[in-house]
């Protein structure tokens, strides 16, 4: 039986004022999964991701990461997770290497391991030449690459990303996909949201489609898609529930 790294059970989140952003959502991401989370704008993707990483409180349901409850053991859950938001607003007043040291210290990454990983990923994403500069001087794409490097520094069991390919150049996007595969082979799991169905179709082994906070479809990509393209399935799912 597959080992569940992330288990979301009947998650419900209502914002103050009554807007229900996520409604009784359940899904499971297992070790080795690259799990795509797709939906329209305002469907509840980011709310789900933020609740999962413990920065947004939720009203109902439960979220488990590596068997630990996000509600009861938030610090332990965060220690095995990496999160990259859609627009990583990093600290402009730190240099790239200071930021990575900061992340390394927080996650307790041993110095030599830290150095090796910084060099590996900085070379991979071609930011080595800028790591001594202030983050304030970075472009959006460079900040994204630095955020990814920071996220990979502690070899997380679960990596959660919100629209990770936005702002990345084609080479960096390709390298990031490679990293996803490497991590999954090592027993980690990736859970990410995207609007780009093409990426989800080629990269993910599992997907979930969310609309209006409710899960419309989920499971192995072949099972969800059948003989059709993911785009056609996505449109069908949305339209069938509108009727």
């Amino acid at each position, binding site marked *: 039986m597959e080992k569940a790294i992330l288990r979301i059970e009947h998650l419900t989140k209502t914002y103050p004022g009554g807007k229900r952003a996520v409604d009784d959502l359940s899904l499971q991401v297992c070790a080795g999964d690259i799990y795509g989370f797709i939906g329209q704008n305002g469907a509840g993707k980011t709310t789900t991701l933020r609740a999962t990483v413990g920065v947004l409180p939720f009203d109902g349901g439960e979220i488990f990461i590596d068997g630990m409850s996000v509600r009861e053991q938030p610090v332990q859950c965060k220690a095995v997770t990496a999160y990259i938001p859609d627009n990583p607003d990093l600290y402009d007043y730190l240099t790239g290497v200071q930021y990575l*040291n900061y992340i390394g210290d927080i996650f307790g990454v041993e110095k030599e391991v830290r150095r090796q990983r910084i060099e590996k990923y*900085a070379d991979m994403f071609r930011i080595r*030449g800028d790591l001594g500069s202030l983050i304030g001087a970075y472009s959006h794409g460079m900040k994204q690459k630095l955020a990814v490097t920071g996220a990979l520094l502690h070899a997380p069991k679960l990596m959660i990303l919100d629209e990770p390919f936005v702002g990345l150049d084609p080479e960096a996007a390709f390298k990031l996909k490679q990293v996803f595969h490497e991590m999954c082979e090592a027993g980690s799991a990736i859970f990410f949201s995207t609007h780009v169905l093409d990426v989800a179709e080629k990269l993910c082994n599992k997907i979930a489609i969310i609309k209006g906070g409710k899960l419309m479809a989920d499971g192995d990509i072949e099972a969800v898609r059948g003989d059709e393209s993911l785009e056609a399935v996505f449109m069908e799912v949305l339209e069938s529930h509108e009727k």
Partner: protein
Amino acid sequence: MKSKWLILTKVQLLGLLGFNRARHTEDPAARRKARGAAVLLAVAAVVIAFYVVMVAVLFCSQGLGRNLPALCVALVSMITLLFTLLRGSAGLFAMKDYDQVMSLPVTKRDLLLSRLLCSYLANLAFSLGVTLPCLIVFFVMEGFSLAVLAVSLAGAVFAPLAPMAAASVIATLLTALTARFRYKNLLQTAVQMVLFIGLMALSFSLSFSNASGEQADMSALFNVLVCKIYPPALLIGMTLSGQIWAIFVFIGGSAAIAAAFVAVLSLCYVRVHDALCAKAASVAYDAKHVRGGSARAALVRREFKRLTSSPVYLMNGVSGALLLVLAAIALLIFDVKGKLLAAGLSEEMLASFLYGGAGLLFMFLCMSCPSASALSLEGSSRDQLFVLPVSPRTVLLAKTVPTLCIDTAAGLIGACVLCARLGADAAAWIALPLSVPVFAAFTALSGIFLNYKFPKYDWTTEAQAVKQSAPVMIMSFGCMALGFGAAAAGFFFGVWAVVALDALCLALCIAVFAYLRRAKLYV
């Protein structure tokens, strides 16, 4: 069609105190916070009005009531100048919404005008807050005068213009000149501090040097003092003496300076902005920069870097401590004890002054509190902090460390110098230095507690979080009131008042420390 500068101003004002958000939100907690902010503003206004009324009553009882309008203009102008200087160029440039606003079909003049207008309205509110209570006292004690009313209101309305323009020019030049330095923030802060202290010292030294002329006519002497603080304020006094043209010179001069500032700066606004946002050349990775440490140390280190990364944060964060150190230096230079004894004060009275000093020490330390805005400054990047695998209490306590360190260091200097120069007895030598870490801990913990309860994450300039947020205002005005109260209690009750204040602070520290165990950090 509405003028564009008016539309821009309206949008900025809507975001200023969070009332628009409260009006349109469905979240009851946000509404409660807005109501709390409104109450806080009212309390701040009452505290200012109280002090102004006390001073006005004193002047009117000495027969100097007609000098009050000029004094109001002089003080408002000086305070506007100092606070605009403290704010630096952040009010005009380097705003987060710069790209978005500059992409709109608005002229640079409209943009500049709207930004200046926002600052002006805040200063005008302060100016009226000082002038109106003065006028009321004057009318109650000396009878109604239409001339005084008209001149005072004209003075209050136009007083902030010229100092704002002058301080903005100085701050902008300073920022532009230091923009390409590696440690530009520290350099800017250092120069701003020198200017700030220099202006204060100059103003006070001139005031006191003239105050010694005992033979002079009080009213004439008073005019000289006003003139030394802010020379154009003398025009207000001249108007009330019958020289009507003087008020037109004051109004025209103030308006002309502000207009010239807008006209000139709008010509070079983009260039100045680009210079201020200049980026240094790339610096490559060096393996020797990779080092290890604990999570707590990493959080604390980041807090210190944050403090030194922003001139407006640093200036506001250390100004109270800095003033305390300067006061200590002044105490070392001047023989205050000798002068007080020469003035007929007994040794017992001096001891009372010493314990009253503990209250003032407390007020200086609380006056500027970086922890009161440390959480708000996380702004839109706060989820980067909240996802880290450390407890919320660890995060919040790390944010108190800069306040704790700065206040303890400055407080110990102040307490020791005060004890040494006023000839403290053993009890005072124990009570005052021991009170310092307690006051510092109280300031740091109260600041972070208030910031946790009332965070202001939606700022477009750091100054909004550092100067205009509810926690900062509560700390400034609350501690000012508490400090004066403690000073009075210390004066009358001696060491026991200090012990009581310490016990109160300690109890509140323990309560906040325990409360933070239950804290949760959510976006």
